[in-house]
């Protein structure tokens, strides 16, 4: 499936938010590295997928009706065997049926648990004045509370992207502190460039949140991708 096929099928089915595996696939199509994952329709299938990925894994519910997966008990971390994965999926189904009865469960996303690193957020949106733009910031309280982020209008070059990294107030954290080594700025910058390309080439994508992206001293990996699509390129409320 090409990127436009993924977007089109969501639009035709009236789903403003891409399913987890669709969003991750879209990122892969643009050369953005994501944590190893697989989609499974049933708990048994999830067990098989996890064998291929290798442990530990995380399992997340895939549903067009659920927007906050953790709130309904739809995410289970640190599963270390096939049995644990199968049981985990069953637990998720039970949680969902109790906390959000009637929500359709399309299946499960099995994802490799990534080692700790520095969590950053990379985003893209379509602005009414400036068109497609990309955003960078540190994850967690830096974005949620301090709103310490910076933008660029697409298309961005690798230099533009590196400049963004230096522009946030907390940029020194990227250079390492205490036991944390400096992160691979080029890996993050090239991810920003790829997202800028994605935003430019897909007019029906309204926004992308890659949150978190885990940055290491070498490389960076997307753990969660949230993609909102819209016919008009903007969201109507």
């Amino acid at each position: 499936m090409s990127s436009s096929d993924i977007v089109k099928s969501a639009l035709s089915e009236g789903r403003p938010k891409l399913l987890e595996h669709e969003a991750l696939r879209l990122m892969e199509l643009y050369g953005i590295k994501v944590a190893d994952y697989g989609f499974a329709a049933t708990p048994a299938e999830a067990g098989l997928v996890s064998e291929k990925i290798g442990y530990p894994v995380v399992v997340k519910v895939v549903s067009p009706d659920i927007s906050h997966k953790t709130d309904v008990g739809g995410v289970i971390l640190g599963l270390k065997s096939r049995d644990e994965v199968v049981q985990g999926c069953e637990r998720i189904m039970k949680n969902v049926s109790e906390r959000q009865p009637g929500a359709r469960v399309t299946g499960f996303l099995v994802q490799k648990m990534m080692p700790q690193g520095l969590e950053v957020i990379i985003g893209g949106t379509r602005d009414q004045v400036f068109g497609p733009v990309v955003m960078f910031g540190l994850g967690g309280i830096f974005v949620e509370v301090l709103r310490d982020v910076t933008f660029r209008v697409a298309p961005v070059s690798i230099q533009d992207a590196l400049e963004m990294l230096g522009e946030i107030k907390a940029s020194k954290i990227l250079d390492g502190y205490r036991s944390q080594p400096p992160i691979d700025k080029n890996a993050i910058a090239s991810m920003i460039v790829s997202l800028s390309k994605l935003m430019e080439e897909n007019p029906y994508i309204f926004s992308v949140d890659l949150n978190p992206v885990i940055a290491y001293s070498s490389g960076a990996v997307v753990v969660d991708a949230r993609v909102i699509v819209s016919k008009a390129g903007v969201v109507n409320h």
Partner: protein
Amino acid sequence: MLDMFFKPSSVAIVGATPKEGKVGRVILENFKNKFKGYVYPVNPHYQEILGLKAYSSLQEIPGSVDLAVIATPAKTVPQILEDAGVKGVKGAIIISGGFRETGTVEGAMLEDEVKKISRRHGIRVIGPNCIGVIDNWSGVDTFFLPEDKMKRPPRGYVSVVSQSGAFASALLDWMAYHGYGVSKAISFGNKVDVDEIELLEYLADDPSTNVVFVYIEGVKENRGRDFLETARKVSARKPVVVYKAGKTKRGGAAAASHTAALAGDYTLYRSVFKQSRVLEATSFDEIMDLAKVLSTQPLMKGRRVYIVTDAGGVGVMLTDAIELSGLEVPETPADLRERLGGFLPPYCIVGNPIDLTGDADDERFIRVLDEILPRSDVDAVVVVALPQIPGLKGSLFEYLVEAKKYGKPILVVLIGGELAVDYRRFLEEKGIPVFESPERLAKALCALYTYSQIRINGGTS
């Protein structure tokens, strides 16, 4: 090409009137007093206005007309613009209000009509609902605020582009009071045709503009990228200082995505300013601080700032402010220490700040500056010359004007009463920026450094 607005050879004032206090009278007086080309008052009720022959319509004017200034009720504007089209007028500044800004259907329809007529005849339009243009070099002045209420600044090299007419006129009045020169000022109102982007482009090519100041509230939908690209191109040639008023709100998107919610913030505009290499003034003070430093000072090649002071305390304040801004106040190198120590009294401090103490005189300042200014490891010099000390008679300030020959930024701190104000006027008239506040000086100097890096590195900072 927008020359018809700034360098017309003939101007018709439609709605000119002899009645005191009327917009049409003030504008006519402006042109009569300052503009060297042909001026034609247009008003069917008069044979003559302020000693000039009046015409009942644009058609009646015998010669060609480059620019029509229209200050008549909104409902008469479409017909006048139509006449202007037939007459072959190149540009119109529509001062009149009563269009889309009223929020009425009638106003919006009138504005659409104006737009259509201007397109059909190829007439360029500034306005409507604006105060138009001042060009201090050609004498064009459509600001309808009489000179006794709003002083006109002297000729200079800073141009002002403003979405708000009231802010533009207040700013110019304030600049006039402080003696800051202006090249051109444009308030573009509802921008049916000419907008800030095209004005930026025009001012980039204008030889009498060294610094462009832009006041914007928001860029029109889908014009963002054009703004960015134009601003970036212009910044590679001359400094653009932007003040953004108002924060955009796009609440709807908030729930859908983090990124979209954050883009609704002012953060996006700030990022765009960085991306386009324009300098953002974040306060009213900064607008003029940046403009006066950028319009008078040469590029600053590096970060190293030397401070020469007759007041230890202010030297320390400046050091803090300059270091905090990201520039450096380096230790005086050994060879320079030695040279300065050779002639300065032993109680002077030859570190940086170089403290000449309260018994300094003009001569001491001048000798030290003569040592420092030619050095390749000095990128800018700040002179703190508090005029209260007995030895300072004023020849230092004449020297500073001459010292521009070294091609380095020189800024001055003067704090005090009338004497300080007199010296300040003298220096600023000669293109040496003077500050009272060390913090404001540091910010402006840092902006000069930022801009210099943009120019030196060819657009990448």
